[in-house]
């Protein structure tokens, strides 16, 4: 499988803050690659560097095997992006915005083709309304239409479901899956809605303080053999000590809201809860979590 994005030792510093720190990763063609991290982790800076909006201090970015610095225009012809919120021209209509961005891509699309593109994101009936009258969700949809208007091979979406209603979220999720699995596009997606990412991503990378802390196959991260449990007992401090010392999970930790988070083998789960009670820790809460979100929280908190 060919590599679409190849990032090597990328670094960007703002004053004393190192926003991206020696970051390296690869994205293969046809993948839905989820890029996760808490606010301020360096996701947006990385995405902006991938689109040459920001110049890295050091490191190298190759897209489609080409150097971004020297072949920017050729690369951007094959790339579509929505970064954070899609800011479009409020004084123009949705149709005019799409037409304008199509022209910027060197395309001369007919009115029918442009309306078809708008229909793809459910905006055909509002094509002639000014964008300033659109809701945030509609702007998001239009931003996605703009990103896809030139049929790019690589689609970079930064928080694509921001501001969307539940139906809109489902539509975007289906669109991403369709783009990847039907049309063979590569999708690089950053989102804080981890449950959404879990449903579409093949590959996940998590960064914190600008550094990669984990990368792997989405299915492997949410292991079928292990589960994260959140525990609340009468004395969480003593309980945590006991879990660590007794070897159930030596890396068990406190959460920010004072609970205990532990990673336990699924087959030992019932034995673990009984052991807690038998050792004098009556359980007020024993919640089992097995989502990407749980995993994300467990390694970033």
């Amino acid at each position, binding site marked *: 499988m060919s590599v679409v994005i190849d990032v090597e030792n990328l670094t960007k510093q703002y004053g004393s803050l190192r926003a991206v720190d020696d970051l390296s990763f690869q994205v293969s063609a046809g993948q839905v690659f989820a890029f996760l991290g808490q606010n301020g982790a360096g996701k947006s800076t990385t995405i902006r560097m991938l689109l040459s*909006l*920001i110049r890295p201090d050091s490191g190298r970015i190759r897209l489609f095997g080409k150097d971004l610095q020297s072949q920017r225009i050729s690369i*951007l*012809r094959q*790339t579509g992006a929505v970064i954070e919120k*899609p800011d479009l021209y409020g*004084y123009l209509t949705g149709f005019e915005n799409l037409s*304008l961005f199509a022209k*910027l891509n060197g395309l001369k699309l007919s009115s029918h083709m442009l309306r078809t593109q708008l229909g793809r994101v459910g905006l055909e009936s509002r094509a002639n309304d000014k964008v300033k009258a659109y809701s945030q969700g509609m702007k998001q949809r239009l931003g996605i239409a703009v990103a896809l208007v030139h049929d790019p091979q690589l689609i970079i979406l930064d928080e694509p479901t921001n501001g969307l209603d539940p139906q809109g979220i489902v539509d975007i999720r289906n669109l991403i899956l369709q783009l990847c699995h039907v049309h063979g596009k590569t999708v690089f997606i950053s989102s804080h809605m981890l449950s959404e990412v879990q449903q579409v991503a093949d590959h996940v990378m998590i960064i914190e303080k600008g550094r990669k802390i984990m990368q792997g196959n989405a299915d492997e991260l949410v292991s079928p053999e292990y589960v994260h449990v959140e525990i609340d007992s009468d004395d969480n401090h003593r309980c945590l000590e006991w879990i660590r010392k007794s070897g159930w999970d030596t890396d068990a930790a406190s959460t920010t809201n004072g609970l205990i988070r532990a990673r336990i083998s699924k087959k030992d789960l019932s034995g673990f809860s009984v052991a807690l009670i038998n050792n004098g820790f009556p359980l007020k809460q024993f919640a089992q979590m097995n989502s990407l979100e749980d995993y994300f929280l467990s390694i970033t908190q």
Partner: protein
Amino acid sequence: MISLVRIELFKIFRKPRTYISFAAVIIIIWLIQLGFYAEGEKYLGFSLQGMSESFLIEGKILNGFLVCFIILQTLLVHIPLLVALVAGDMVSGEANQGTLRMLLTRPVSRTKLLISKFIAATMYTIGLLIWLAIWSLFFSLFIFGKGDMLIMKSDVVTQILSSDALWRYFAAFCFATLAMITVTSLAFLLSVFASNSIGPIIATMAVVVLFTIIQTLDLPLFNAVKPFLFTTHMLAWKGFFDVQMNEANEQIVGSIQDMSGILWSGAILAVHILFFLGVAIFIFRRKDILT
């Protein structure tokens, strides 16, 4: 490139704020014309009171050419603000809206994008000056008719024949356009630095006002600086109304007293434009788009 310029022009002329300048120009011109139409003769009579004791003044002094000259004297001080309103918004406005990052993720060269924006801003400035010419000159001629021009300076009165005036206005408007393109390029440069359009507009006006104050004050320190200020050279359009005299102290029709001075000022303005644009390109090519 042509396509990019067309896109930029499309955006400029779809923005309501663009038409503020055109509306402001027409309102001011109409007010001045209305004032002169109602009380122009009285005003000129008062102004020429001293002269009429020494000279016999015949003919129609209040005419379209004179009114246009007065309008230009008044208005060319304010046009920079109207020019800055659009030019100062060209990059900073897009940065503020977030559309700049949308634009720059398209396969477009940053240099070409910036140059096309500058060309579009320049075309807007040219359009504004043409608009000014139509209403200040042609509409004044329509209302007040033709006639010889009397231009009063501090110690000199210049008379320009009616048949000798029109080409001078054409030249003056062309020069004024160059002067306003200089302001456009300054506002455009400042626009590259900012993330909101108010900053570059105010900064441009601050520079123009500051330079104009320095230019007005007759102090030795400032006199040394004046030749280097672009605002000094912006007023060289008036030179087209200084007529050469022959040995018999008669006007030479079709002549200009100091053509080399006008050309020098034009060259200095052109250098300013190239410098401002060059710096803008240099900065923009390296700029991190954080908005």
